[in-house]
């Protein structure tokens, strides 16, 4: 096994051992923390496809995270109040079934990513960063000023949504669902990276002219990656809202976009397990530093500054060294 493989295996082991230990020791708070880390990791896996593989510096991924969250909030609140979503052309009601909610969350965030991506990818570089940030803010303001679903106050759900055969109100069972989805997400990302599409996307990041001269369009590659990325982040948003049983415009805020990007980078952009390591570190820092000082974001900022200026490659880069050539 390569060193990166060993590091990845250790991360998976940690993800299994910590919550199971906490569950046995009857520490539901730690189970909840682990669930948060797992869900954020999934959001990061989504961003990493655009950022790490595709080289697209998107500061608007909170849009997809938030859409996933609101897909959950809106469907569940309609189910809760027995009011149909709409009556025309046919009556569609809300639902409290997780798989259905996920499907809707992924479709809608994919559609949003298609629109945002199609426009933003007409540009590159600094323009792309500013535009994704701006479109993210558009969704934020829309959520704030749309009164039907709580506006600024957000939406609360009384009971966590259901999954066939499981009791999602038991923290460790909900964690198991999230962990399973994270593993599926990682498996998909790994498959993507090794596929013809992944090779072409990665090459389009390094040498777009080369990709064009072998007959592929960087725009199309990037747009596909952006949509896939948005879909996965949207799914994570639905889970995150379900974890909190609450969704508010904060999920759409630019800070959310920034934080997802920060932990992906801290973990190691472009590395399969980078987002997972980063999310775990982020939750750990939030918990430990947050306990030390109410102003823990100062320390997070300093740490980030040091990593950016002096230690590139993130945790996985630090632990596993350079990637090994695979022929």
């Amino acid at each position, binding site marked *: 096994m390569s060193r990166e493989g060993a590091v990845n295996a250790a991360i998976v082991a940690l993800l299994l051992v910590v919550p199971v230990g906490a569950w046995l020791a009857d520490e539901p708070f730690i189970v909840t923390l682990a669930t948060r880390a797992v869900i954020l990791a999934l959001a990061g896996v989504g961003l990493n496809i655009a950022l790490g593989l595709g080289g697209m510096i998107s500061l608007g991924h909170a849009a997809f995270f938030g859409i996933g969250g609101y897909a959950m909030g809106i469907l569940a609140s309609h189910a809760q109040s027995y009011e149909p979503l709409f009556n025309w052309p046919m009556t569609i009601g809300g639902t409290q079934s997780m798989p259905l909610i996920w499907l809707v969350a992924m479709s809608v965030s994919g559609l949003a990513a298609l629109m945002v991506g199609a426009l933003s990818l007409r540009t590159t570089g600094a323009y792309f960063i500013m535009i994704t940030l701006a479109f993210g803010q558009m969704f934020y303001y829309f959520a704030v000023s749309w009164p039907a679903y709580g506006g600024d106050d957000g939406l609360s759900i009384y009971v966590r949504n259901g999954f066939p055969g499981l009791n999602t109100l038991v923290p460790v069972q909900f964690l198991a669902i999230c962990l399973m989805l994270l593993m599926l997400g990682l498996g998909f990302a790994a498959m993507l990276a090794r596929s013809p599409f992944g*090779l*072409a996307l*990665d*090459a389009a990041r*390094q040498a777009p002219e*080369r990709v064009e*001269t*072998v007959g*592929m369009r960087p725009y199309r590659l990037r747009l596909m990656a952006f949509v896939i990325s948005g879909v996965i982040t949207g799914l994570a948003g639905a889970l995150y809202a379900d974890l909190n049983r609450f969704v508010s415009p904060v999920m759409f805020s630019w800070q959310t976009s920034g934080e997802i990007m920060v932990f992906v980078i801290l973990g190691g952009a472009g590395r399969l397990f980078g987002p997972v390591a980063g999310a775990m570190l982020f939750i750990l820092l939030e918990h430990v530093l947050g306990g030390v000082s109410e102003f823990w974001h100062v320390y997070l900022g300093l740490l980030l500054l040091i990593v950016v200026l002096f230690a590139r490659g993130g945790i996985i880069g630090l632990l596993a060294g350079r990637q090994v050539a695979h022929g």
Partner: protein
Amino acid sequence: MAEPVLATRGICKSFGAVTACKDVSIDLQAGEIHALIGPNGAGKSTLIRQIAGGLRPDAGRVILQGRDVTALGTAARARRGLARTFQVSTLAMEDTVLQNAVLGAMRACGNPYRVFGRALAAGEVRDRAEAALARVGLQGVAARWASELSHGQRRQLEVAVALALAPRVFVMDEPMAGLGGAGSRALTGFLDGLREEAPILLVEHDMDAVFALADRVSVLVYGSVIATGTVDEVRRDPQVRRAYLGEEA
């Protein structure tokens, strides 16, 4: 004369007040190497970009295998069989040599936008990529990072990626640039054998290579083609002598 594989008809391009191409019409016949020479700044690179698709001409047409491709982008022209190499190596440096070659082969067989399956899986694509590497002599370094290659090897890999496309026509922008005498002679020998497979439009400063390879030569000066003919015809052409040597004709 048979219909050319690749042709430009009356291409004009200017950037502000600077005219880069003025009514350029050249053609490339099956089985030939057509060299495009001219002093620095004559507009060769601009012309190549318009032929390959990176730049839209102000006027005129580009015709590939009898079809007007002027409105098509680079990728679409590549799909129609135009393979281009760059003056400055343009490779995915963080990928392996084999991955770069596979990138070239993907479009010709199968769907390169496929998200499942392995890009490097054994099969037609990989065979074709490996064959292209073997032809330029890079089979021994297939597993190395492209960034680890020497300058000469990178030039070879550029050619291998173009070969992997199985193109109908090659457009090569100074493939000999920066190669030493031996490397240049080896590549000259290789290109010599390639013309039967697909004709080559060759932009080159290395005159030994041009004289050894070219069936025909076009001389581009200040954006205009001032002469086209065999090596000997061009060498005797009074306009060419005047442009290069400043001689009174």
